[in-house]
């Protein structure tokens, strides 16, 4: 039997979607009203409080819906009520 000289390596590599497309978990989707949004980088409370970091920090705001879990925190915390949670069919 030949000696196995390859070291066993159990180091994970960083990648998106470790848990799959977590956008599938949503029952409600955030919709941004860009007119209502202040479009000021001094606000960005939605970006600040999104646990999953899926809101862009640049305007017009974009939400990565492949991974947004639909928690609704962004809509709740937006001071201008510019984000609405819409029921997914």
């Amino acid at each position, binding site marked *: 039997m030949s000696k196995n000289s390859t070291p066993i390596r159990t180091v994970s590599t960083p*990648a*998106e979607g*470790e848990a799959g497309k*977590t956008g599938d978990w949503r029952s409600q989707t955030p919709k941004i009203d860009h007119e209502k949004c202040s479009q000021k980088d001094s606000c960005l409370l939605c970006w600040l409080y999104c*646990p999953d970091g899926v809101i862009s920090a640049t305007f017009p705001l974009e939400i990565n819906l492949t991974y947004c879990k639909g928690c609704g925190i962004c809509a709740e915390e937006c001071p201008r009520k510019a984000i609405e949670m819409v029921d997914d069919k």
Partner: protein
Amino acid sequence: MATTSVKQLPKTEMILPGTRSCAGCGLMLTYRHALKALDEGKTIVAVPASCMTVLHGVYPITPVKVVCINNPFAATGAAASGIVAGLKATGKSDYTVVAFAGDGGTYDIGIQALSGALERGVNFIYICYDNEGYMNTGTQRSSASPLGAVTSTTPILSKLQHKKDMIRIVEAHDLPYIATGSPAFPFDLFDKVKYAKDVLGSRYIEVHAPCPPGWGFPNKDLVKMGKLAVESGIHVLFEIREGRFSLTSRSLAMAKKGRKMNVSDYIKGQTRFKKISGAHLAQLQEFTDKKWNESLERHFRDNP
């Protein structure tokens, strides 16, 4: 300089999207901002069995960009000590070692290894994210769960004991830096982790991390719950630098303007308190008032 605007926070995310943590998770928001305060290539994280391990993902991929070592449940303090020793032996002096454990892994099963590391003055940051129970395994009680909370191991009478005072235990080790934080106050949290990064010796930060499924509140209310905890005095934001105690952020503002919320405002949105008795509620309020008054006294004594 204290962070006062979103503009000052680094925009790079250290956690890639599509993680296993629940929607609206307080740990996720905590970790997201804590990692922004650390250097991507120069941070090594030690994590015990917990929701944090789940967040870190299943081999061969992970959503987190910093190097992480998964350690046994009770061993976080020891694992971090080993990493620090290894870095020293290989002459790498520019790394920050950060242990990141839940309250079960800190207050209960990990306390021996933690106390050992703190007593040796190991050069690392220990962050306890306190979601007040063993959440990963189904909301069992821990010594950090509050009085009156229903958990899966206190289903009938709810919890009969107050939360353990972990800060006092940690303080007994004479650390150069101790702080509390909340993901509902990300600037304060970011600043404390950033400050801790440059302190030598053992640093301890405890973050109150609301957990929607474990506490029984809607996902969207995560930030509200975190704020209510601070505004009711259930969780006090402070830091202790070389023994000097200072209130920070919203708690500091409350010290000046007064506390307007009470415990009943905080618990009413959480189903874990659905069985709380009038007597327990009064005890929880009394316990909270006592801690708040002690914090005020210490703050004004150390900051005349």
